[in-house]
């Protein structure tokens, strides 16, 4: 069989539908003519090589992307909190004071609460911007309608506002609430903060604010003991006046 005489399909000027005319590139031809190619003008083999190369290129990259998507789906969601948070709690906490608004929050405000049960509910996030299918987007969305129950005990004689955000795991798994720090290095830390599981009831989050604690905003992290993951934040505002170093506006 002589390969030269075998019929071959013609080279096609276009092989894809045009779905959006406003982004159409180039003229009806598609791939631009190669400058300096040694092929004679009108030499169909040059066109062949070009369109085959482009098709081959698309094939390789599309295959690659599909493999990547499959692999990504198989892996668990990428976690927001890195494994090394617990090691660098101090550093991160200071920044957290500035960046608290980046986290989802259901803010529960209490005034002079002692004992009593508090119920925190994580609400569904509104995904704005580009809600692509990538797992990155999952960092913002919290499960809808789940209730995380904790009992909040605040021991103080000052006027305080306590805000808590907890992932569901915090209430059920061993977690440590780190001391609350202020952005101002001079102010002492709030060390009497603890999260204890309570058999037969919701976990107990206890915050003690000494009488002589300077006014300001104090923030701290709740870190899962086993996975060293960030599972919550605690924010305490002491004093009547709103603090200037409070959260940045929520990004759109």
């Amino acid at each position: 069989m002589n390969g030269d005489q075998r019929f071959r399909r013609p080279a096609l000027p276009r092989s894809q539908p045009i779905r959006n005319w406003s982004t159409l590139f180039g003229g009806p031809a598609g791939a631009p003519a190669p400058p300096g190619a040694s092929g004679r003008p009108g030499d169909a083999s040059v066109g062949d090589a070009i369109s085959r190369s482009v098709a081959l290129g698309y094939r390789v990259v599309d295959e690659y992307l599909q493999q990547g998507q499959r692999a990504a789906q198989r892996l668990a969601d990428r976690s927001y909190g890195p494994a090394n948070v617990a090691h660098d709690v101090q550093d991160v906490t200071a920044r957290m004071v500035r960046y608290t608004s980046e986290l989802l929050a259901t803010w529960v405000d209490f005034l002079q609460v002692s004992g009593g049960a508090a119920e925190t509910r994580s609400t569904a996030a509104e995904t704005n911007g580009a809600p692509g299918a990538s797992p990155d987007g999952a960092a913002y969305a919290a499960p809808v309608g789940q209730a995380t129950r904790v009992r909040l005990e605040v021991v103080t004689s000052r006027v305080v506002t306590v805000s808590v955000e907890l992932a569901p795991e915090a209430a059920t798994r061993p977690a440590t609430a780190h001391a609350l720090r202020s952005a101002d290095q001079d102010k002492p830390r709030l060390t009497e903060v603890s999260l204890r599981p309570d058999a037969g009831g919701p976990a107990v989050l206890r915050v003690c604010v000494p009488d002589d604690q300077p006014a300001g905003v104090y923030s701290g992290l709740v870190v899962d003991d086993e996975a060293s993951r960030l599972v919550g934040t605690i924010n305490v505002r002491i004093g009547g006046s709103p603090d200037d170093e409070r959260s940045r506006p929520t990004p759109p």
Partner: protein
Amino acid sequence: MTSDLVPRLLEDYGNRTRVALCEYLRPRAPQRHLYNLVADYPRRGGRMLRPSLCLATARAFGASADEALTSAVALELLHNAFLVHDDVEDESDERRGRPTLHAIHGVPVAINVGDALVVLGIRALTDNRRTLGTRLALCVLEEAAHMACESVEGQALELGWRRDNALYLTDADYLEMVLKKTCWYTTIFPSRVGALIGTREPQSLDRFVRFGFFLGAAFQIQDDVLNLQGDEARYGKESSGDLWEGKRTLMLIALLRAARDDERTRLSAFLSLPRPERRAADVRWVRERMAAYGCVDYARQVAHALAGAARHECTALYAGLPRTRDREFIEALPGWVLARN
């Protein structure tokens, strides 16, 4: 479209990156065997395509150059780390007009220097926390980890071919290797990170993979073509470093495909020799065979085709963005990749 836009921006962004890079290359102890050498490759210059693409993409998406600068520096550090190690692995003699690091200082020292560059790159990436915030810095770090993984895998493919003396490779194999080894850190990662910083949203970044792949592949293939042909014009002598290394370029793959059986046997013998034993006469013969079968022209056509596809993908990708100088720069890159020498 101004024809010197690309060189101008490359120089501009390149200089900014170099200045920031110097902060990480400050001499400390031990100097003689480490930090002086660490600064060697970065100081030798280079086109700075990668950091420029990163900065330009970030700006095209609305960020400032400063926000992306640290990531660009990190990339350049990692790039130089790869170069140092690649030169060792490929047993190359020359890099950017001067002897390779391991040729001067020996392989053990060179490997360590490469490691140090990686460490500096990681440090730069963690420094992103200050400018970008923790969340975004983590995303960039994850991107970098992914990119490094792909580069390593790509290099493994290529090394494997050389080690096993692979003779029956296809264009698809080559493109897959280039995608992983070169495109990820040359074009895909800078674009993705630039977009990430610019929009501050982790979003579907897959669309940059296609654009980056076509651009990077065209870039690499054209590089390989110039390696064979450019030297004559510039140095007045044939250098053909890739041929001496037995690097599986698109041209070599095409030659292996087209050759007659007796020619392929001779090629196979040539490729299976260790580098010091290869002779100039054989290298000349390979060049001549490539010319006879039109392999170089074929590779050039493929590079053109891929550049055209890159331009198409680029237009689709950046369509919604305002027409800025940076967007024009990016759109001009496919053309520049082909036209440079």
